[in-house]
């Protein structure tokens, strides 16, 4: 764990020691929030240089960053920057206080590029200013938001009768033969809304400006001060297809704040359900890629397999998106022996069918001609942008929360994490195909060793003021939920960052120099959500 071992290669230990030596004058306080999370308080003015050192010298990768409004009680805003210190199961959180009347700080983005969207979001939602941010345009706030409208401030009062016409300063690209192609927010298929502005010459994409936040529903504002059960309802509905991962990350965060651990059987069933969710997502993703290269047989087969797994989830746990299964403290449903045997049989046929599908697709020259080389994201760009999940692993960036920060039952399970180097559409396709195989292996293992006992811990009430962090490898990658408890077990503050939030900036890089007609394919190979990014 995080205890001192004296090894130089121990990232957390090197970072903590390095901070004491190099930044002795900057470290105001150092503490622990949990076994895993280490807090280091620095002055706002030094945040950028300390974050740069944690990231570059000690290998910290940014999990999330957010701002809290503490003006009421302490007259200040507070920033949290959470770094995963993998391979240690440890998180190093840099905390900086900003004066309530002038909340400015040196933007971390020039040094840690993964903070790009997070800081733009903080500027919109909390009204703090990241000085020197390379792209300070609004992200969530569409033009037409009234001045001083910062929904995450605790004294936020929604302006009456506002209308928000969407206007946005897109980055112009000028030159001979350059033209702009605007696409969205309403698209041609049954898909979510986003606006894409291509600047292109002929068919080649020179620049892609992605404009999201169309679905902004103010979820974190809506959750403030609500009972945990209500925030769970909101968390589960932040994203339809990753609903279980959200419920799991939120529940883990509440459990950490309460100092409670779910019973072993609950943890095993959580891992099992998380793998089912990965299965139906990945089957759908394979179908999506094949649909976009007009390989109809493969697309229909992928959609069929997604439906098979969703029907199994429904039959066993009562919901096609596994909602209502995971709650703080444990799970609400059990599997008896006959159901376990049935699930094993169903997944056995799914495994064989996915293998046949992948064989058919990858041996088809017309399919592979489109997949190979399209939308390549290099390993350096993937690391630099802090890409997560299958997208990272397809670009040679080997990271998986299940292995580095084990939750649920993963510490006791044996599994491979498929990694490819190419970073193109075919690599993302192959990684997801291999992960389907591993997920079914994982479910089989859990069914063999399903521990007995309770399904739910009796009492999960975090003491007021306690904070907790939940990190989960959702189908699209690292998902984090952070909560701070209020009075009587209510959730005082809740912050969430989905995998798609981390990966969207990479899509805009991966499509460069590709042709416009390949954009849907490249986009589908990432298959990112919009709802849990916009929130």
């Amino acid at each position, binding site marked *: 764990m995080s205890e001192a071992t004296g090894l130089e290669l121990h990232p957390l230990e090197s970072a903590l020691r390095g901070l004491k030596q190099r930044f002795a004058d900057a470290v105001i306080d150092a503490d622990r929030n949990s076994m895993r999370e280490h807090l280091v308080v620095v002055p706002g003015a030094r945040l950028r240089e300390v974050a740069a050192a944690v990231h570059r010298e000690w290998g910290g990768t940014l999990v999330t960053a957010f701002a809290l409004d503490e003006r009421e009680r302490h007259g200040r805003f507070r920033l949290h920057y959470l770094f995963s210190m993998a391979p240690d199961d440890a998180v190093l959180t840099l905390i900086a206080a900003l004066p309530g009347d002038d909340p400015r700080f040196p933007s971390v983005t020039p040094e840690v590029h993964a903070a790009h969207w997070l800081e733009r979001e903080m500027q919109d939602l909390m009204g703090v200013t990241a000085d020197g941010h390379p792209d300070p345009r609004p992200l969530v706030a569409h033009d037409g938001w009234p001045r001083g409208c910062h929904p995450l401030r605790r004294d936020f009062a929604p302006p009456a009768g506002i209308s928000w016409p969407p206007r946005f300063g897109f980055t112009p690209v000028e030159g001979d033969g350059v033209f702009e192609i605007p696409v969205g927010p309403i698209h041609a298929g049954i898909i979510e809304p986003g606006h894409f502005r291509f600047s292109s010459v002929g068919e080649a994409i020179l620049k892609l400006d992605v404009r999201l936040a169309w679905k*902004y529903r103010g979820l974190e504002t809506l959750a403030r001060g609500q009972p945990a059960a209500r925030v769970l309802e909101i968390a589960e509905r932040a994203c339809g297809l990753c609903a279980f991962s959200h419920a799991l990350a939120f529940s883990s965060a509440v459990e950490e704040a309460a100092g409670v651990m779910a019973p072993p059987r609950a943890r095993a069933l959580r891992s099992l359900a998380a793998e089912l969710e990965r299965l139906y997502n990945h089957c759908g993703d394979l179908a999506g890629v094949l649909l976009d290269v007009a390989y109809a047989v493969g697309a229909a087969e992928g959609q069929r397999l997604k439906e098979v797994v969703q029907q199994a989830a429904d039959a066993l746990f009562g919901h096609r998106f596994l909602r209502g299964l995971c709650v703080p403290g444990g799970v609400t449903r059990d599997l008896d022996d006959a*159901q376990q045997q049935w699930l094993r049989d169903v997944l056995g046929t799914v495994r064989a069918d996915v293998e046949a599908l992948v064989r058919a697709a990858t041996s088809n020259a017309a399919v592979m001609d489109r997949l190979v080389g399209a939308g390549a994201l290099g390993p350096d760009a993937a690391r630099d942008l802090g890409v997560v999940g299958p997208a990272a692993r397809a670009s040679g960036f080997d990271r998986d929360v299940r292995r580095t920060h084990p939750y649920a039952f993963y510490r006791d399970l044996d599994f491979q994490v498929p990694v490819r180097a190419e970073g193109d559409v075919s690599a993302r396709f192959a990684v997801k195909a291999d992960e389907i195989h591993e997920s079914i292996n994982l479910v089989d293992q859990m069914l063999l060793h399903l521990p007995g006992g309770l399904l739910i811990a009796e009492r999960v009430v975090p003491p007021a003021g306690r904070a907790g962090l939940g990190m989960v490898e959702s189908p699209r990658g690292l998902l984090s939920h952070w909560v701070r408890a209020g009075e009587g077990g209510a959730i005082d503050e809740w912050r969430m960052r989905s995998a798609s939030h981390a990966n969207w900036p990479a899509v805009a890089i991966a499509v460069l120099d590709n042709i416009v007609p390949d954009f849907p394919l490249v986009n589908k190979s990432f298959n990112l959500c919009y709802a849990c990014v916009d929130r």
Partner: protein
Amino acid sequence: MWEILVRSLRQGVVTGKSAAPLPADLAPAPRAAEAEIEVLGQALQAEIRGRFRRSMKLRHVDCGSCNGCESELQALLNPFYDLQRFGIDFVASPRHADALMVTGPPALHLEEALRLTDEATPRPRLVVAVGDCACTGGFCAGSFATRRGIEEVLAVDVRIPGCPPRPEAIVRALLKALRG
């Protein structure tokens, strides 16, 4: 590819069937839905034959849903439900649509897009609120950034509650609307 085709021939069509039916003694098994699709679909086809000259076209408009409703609308086109065989399809342009399938509370950011999409849809057209959010604002009701249902922006003809509504519930509601 032949492997998939040969297996399909061996297995027979999956359309209208359950993926892998739970044995009868295994509870819970809310699995009457698949057979129901056949009955509902054929009734729907009869309505569409009479009133839409065999072909009813839907246009989906996402106004801030969680993507759950989208997933279920997409599922209607997968080999299990295969709604196209009854004369229903989703189209790329509102100008080709007989009905708008609207999801989401709606989010304020998308209100303008919803209005413009509706204006582009030729009359007569049905406005269908798909899912709890679209019907009442759902779990978002009370958020400053959303409305309490599509009704606050457009007059709604059909409401399909559910979070998200199951694929067969969507078909049932469409049938009810056409008959009503």
